[in-house]
């Protein structure tokens, strides 16, 4: 009895791993082409059919480059934090349910996901701190600031959803959206959730950790090639996770007009990913004190309003 459960978990693990890697690869390629189109130029075209193999070439080249260890850098802390970040992000993706295909359906799965998600910026700060580069130090300090100021609105919106559905298991949340998506029930909650998740995923206009015009490459300044590839991959997987969570919680997961199957979930995820890329191509980075003002005052107020509206049975 225990064995087939184990087999099921391993089977699920493999499927989710493949989807995460495939989506991360596809997201990377789509981003370069999509943002390229915004800038009146084509993205990579020569390799593969539409430049599809370009990311593969980058992946392999980065894998085989040399990692230069700066003298003052703390090697152990650096390695630990890089692999922990990768591990936690993959673990997050594992917890996502797809149609009737999931590992755990306990009633507190959503809280577990967001506790882990709030753990990531601390690891990123640790990584930035360990590479003992002045720019990485500043970006580590900023990642902590971002974490604090965007966690509370995020959790308030989750409480609102949980209260509405009376449980935190994603499957029941998605089932509750069968007739009306949460996007229409709590539009303010959707806006707050989107903004907070953008900050979590380091996307413009909140990409202060990797602000390439000021801090060169933020916490990635001193990461050598193999670990930079890992960080890049983790960045794309986190975007996949963010897009998937948004489409699950607010856009009614696998419920679609004809039959509800996991294809709907992927279409919505890709659509949200395109929206995130659109923001990256257009928006300007906000200054750190404006972000804190936005996080603490605007988002906090909106999430409280959203909580009241849900509580009053709106």
């Amino acid at each position, binding site marked *: 009895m225990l064995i087939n459960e184990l087999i099921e978990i391993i089977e699920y693990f493999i499927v989710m791993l493949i989807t995460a890697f495939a989506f991360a690869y596809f997201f990377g390629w789509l981003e370069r082409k999509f943002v390229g189109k915004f*800038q009146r130029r084509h993205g990579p075209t020569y390799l593969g059919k539409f430049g599809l193999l370009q990311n593969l070439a980058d992946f392999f080249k980065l894998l085989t480059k040399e990692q230069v260890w700066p003298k003052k850098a703390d090697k152990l802390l650096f390695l630990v934090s890089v692999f922990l970040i990768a591990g936690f992000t993959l673990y997050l993706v594992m917890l996502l349910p797809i149609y009737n295909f999931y590992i755990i359906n306990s009633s507190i799965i959503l809280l577990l996901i967001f506790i882990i998600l709030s753990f990531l910026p601390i690891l990123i700060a640790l990584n930035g701190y360990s590479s003992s580069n*002045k720019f990485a130090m500043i970006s580590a300090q900023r990642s902590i600031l971002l974490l604090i100021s965007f966690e509370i609105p995020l959790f308030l919106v989750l409480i609102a959803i949980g209260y509405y559905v009376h449980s935190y298991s994603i499957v029941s949340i998605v089932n509750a959206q069968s007739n009306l998506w949460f996007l229409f029930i709590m539009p303010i909650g959707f806006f707050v959730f989107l903004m907070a998740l953008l900050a979590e995923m380091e996307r413009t206009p909140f990409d202060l950790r990797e602000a390439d015009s000021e801090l060169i490459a933020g916490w990635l300044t001193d990461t050598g090639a193999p670990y930079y590839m890992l960080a890049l991959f983790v960045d794309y997987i986190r975007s996949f996770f963010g897009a998937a969570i948004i489409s699950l919680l607010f856009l009614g997961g696998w419920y679609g007009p004809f039959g509800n199957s996991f294809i709907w979930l992927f279409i919505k995820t890709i659509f949200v990913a395109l929206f995130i890329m659109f923001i990256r191509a257009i928006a300007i*980075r*906000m*200054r750190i004190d*404006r972000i804190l003002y936005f996080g603490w005052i605007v988002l906090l107020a909106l999430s409280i309003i959203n909580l009241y509206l849900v509580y009053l049975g709106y």
Partner: protein
Amino acid sequence: MSLVKINIGPVHPSTHGLLRLVVTLDGDTIVNVEPHVGFLHRGVEKLAENRMYMQIPPFIEKCDYVAKTAMDEAYVATVEAAMGIEPNERAQYERVILLELQRIASHLLWLGAMLNDLGHFFSVFMWTFADRDKVLKLLEEATGQRMFYVNMRLGGLRQEFPKDFEYHVLDVLAYLEKRINEYESFIENSSLFKERMYKVGVLSRDDAINLGVSGPVLRASGVNFDVRKDKPYYVYKKLNFKPIVLYNGDNFSRYKVRILEIKESIRLIREAFKQMPDGNATGMPIKLINPAPKNKVVRVSREGPRGEIMFYLVADEQRPYRLAMRTPAFINLAALNHIAKGNKFANLFPIIGSLDLVMADVDK
């Protein structure tokens, strides 16, 4: 609080060239910015003392490699003043057209680089560079070279404008006018842009005069000084040129002055094409230059896109005895410390962007 000293190295994405900044930070606010320059110094003024008169324009153009015609034309005007040559009517119009085209290209490049500093992931950078390419194609059509034109001869230009150059220019200008309005509405309506540009890096009027800055940085602080109006040269008087002056001297008004200057340049070019008489604008070929009178001192100042370019020439028979240059970016950078004091660290780069620096200009 302990002061942190940050060394922003010479090769940095948003220092527009080789400029090392030693920034002392108190937390996130800037206490002092000390620019270290000299990474591109190659002694142009000393070089000028060992070259014949018309061998020097290629070196002068490499000083301000974004506004090439402005520097080249200013130098040739000084030599003309020393030798008492006056370009004919048509040559003056054609020089004004090339100068204004160059000003548009320089401001477009600045706009792209400026938005890229604000963290705009190369989007507006690509758009403005695509438009700038159109203007460069025009200049290439008129002068034959894509970057360094060396198109000025004593008394006129190296070669006449090609046959239907006017229609090409008017098409590109119409396209550019549409693009500039698009950029203006797209950039200025975004509240993110307003947050980072309003009341950032304020330079008051008498500070600007005392520091001696020039060009759009000076006009953004309310000083109504533009060499094209105050010491009019060529046909700017006939084109009734009016300088653009804004009054609150922060980043946004420095940005706005340049955008309006692009529009003003478009109007000037159209006006110049209308009023241009016929005739031949080619200047004197190089080998027929009669020697300049000995020890004649000449001082000529022109309005480049970055500010006032002034040449001080002590003439000798065949080569300048001493050629002193006032390059605008040199002084605008000196004012950086005064402007950036007290701002946030993240504001430092928009301020550097708004000063529109070209490092070869600073290091001479």
